[in-house]
């Protein structure tokens, strides 16, 4: 479904990604792990077109997208929940969610999804007419995830979704991802809760200083010594 071939990315002149290749099959749950500053977020940003690689190509559903604009990429069915809880502060929570469904034209369907999100995150329903800026950190994170789900994407990219969520909620979010995957959506996730996430995923990639150093089934990676040493502090 998604093929990333040999991309390299620089911010200004500083190289961040070097010759990164990987692919995501339809219906898979894939995770990218790596230490701080390895370039995980940058991979997602590159796929969704916020930064452009100066080398390499990205194909989505067999179409090249490395030069496309973010909104075109979204229209093709990729949804990206960025890190850092970037919600629209001055808009109500309901509006924030509706913005998430900007590419959807079927209003009835949008309303349905909205109800689903309200079920998943009851706090959002309760506060739907309040401005985004009044939310707490964790509530924002919930909103950001829900907003990304509103698009009903073919490929959902999540950047550290459990950041700042209470243990209960963070489990719930990861479970929800499982469910979404089961319903046919492909998921590409960046996560720091390595142990939890690698247990669940089909495929995992380990990123170090802009290069993929290992890949394999989640359970394989978990078993690997290098991973355990580098990321699990064991």
């Amino acid at each position, binding site marked *: 479904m998604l093929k990333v071939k040999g991309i390299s990315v620089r911010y200004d002149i500083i190289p961040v990604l070097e010759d990164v290749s990987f692919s995501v099959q339809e219906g898979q749950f894939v995770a990218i792990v790596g230490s701080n500053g390895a370039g995980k977020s940058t991979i997602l940003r590159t796929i969704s077109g916020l930064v452009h690689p100066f080398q390499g190509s990205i194909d989505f559903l067999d179409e090249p997208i490395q030069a496309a604009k973010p909104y075109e990429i979204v229209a093709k069915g990729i949804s990206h929940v*960025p890190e850092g809880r970037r919600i629209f502060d001055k808009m109500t929570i309901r509006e924030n969610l509706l913005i998430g469904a900007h590419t959807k034209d079927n209003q009835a369907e949008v309303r349905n999804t909205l109800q689903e999100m309200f079920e998943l995150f009851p706090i959002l329903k309760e506060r739907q007419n309040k401005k985004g800026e009044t939310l707490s950190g964790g509530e924002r994170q919930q909103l950001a995830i829900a*907003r990304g789900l509103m698009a009903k994407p073919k490929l959902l990219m999540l950047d550290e979704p459990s950041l700042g969520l209470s243990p209960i909620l963070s489990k719930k979010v990861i479970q929800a991802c499982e469910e979404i995957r089961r319903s046919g959506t492909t998921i590409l996730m960046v996560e720091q809760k390595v142990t939890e996430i690698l247990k669940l995923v089909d495929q995992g990639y380990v990123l170090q200083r802009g290069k993929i150093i290992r890949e394999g089934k989640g359970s394989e990676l978990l078993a690997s010594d290098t991973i355990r040493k580098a990321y699990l502090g064991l």
Partner: protein
Amino acid sequence: MDLTIFLQLIISGLLIGFVFSLIAVGLSLIWGVMDILNFAHGEFLMLAMFTSFFLFAQLGIDPLYSLPIVVIVLYFIGAGTYRFVIKPLLGYTVLIALLATFGLSILIRNLVLFFVGPNYRVINESILAGKTFSIGGLYFSVPQSVAALLCILVTYGIYLLLTKSKFGRALRATSLDKDTAMLMGINTNRIFEITFGIGAACVGVAGGLLVNFYAVFPEVGLNFTVLAFVIVALGGFGNNGGAFLAGILVGLVTTMGGFFIGPEYKYTLVFLLYLVVITIRPKGLFGW
């Protein structure tokens, strides 16, 4: 003082207030919602007036009928300004937009001066120009009354556009966080371009009506720019209804204040009003 004068003051204040509103609503959209400071707003108004004037003088189309044409022309002027001047500046300090549009205002004003000369032009014979009607000793200027009517329509239309439509939602999202808006699938450039066009088109409506009771000359926009800026801030940013009401308020203040306190103070009163409001409500009358 007799009652007719008093009532006339209110009527005249309201009528001119609507004109102010109409000019400010376009600015409020561009500045208040998109957060782009357009100093060339007054020049857009001037261009609208000239377009209307020349359609009348050269082709004999009455300003009332040419209004749609003027609106369309201004839409493209606005959209073009966005594409060629504003777009490259997004993401830099807002002051750079101020500088660029200030340069643009000098450019437009003097280009017009170059091509049509500095003369004052006046339309005296048109469907609206120079007409008044009176009810019980109170006088209503017809072109200003029409302007008032259109102002209400335009403001309401923009209100609907902003709050009730998908477009409006996308616009607000874009102005709050461009990158994230793009991730929502919003074509942010298009949204901004259209909005800039609409903002200019609002000024088009104002200009198309203003020719009926105002002289047209290259410097005409300057008289209104500053006032429009204060009106938008008074109403509160991000709120078109605010600009609308503030415009009317300013119309009343200039007229009533000018009469009772002294005409030489009428604009000072507007500024004082702004300062007083802002000390009580730091975000304007209706801002967020």
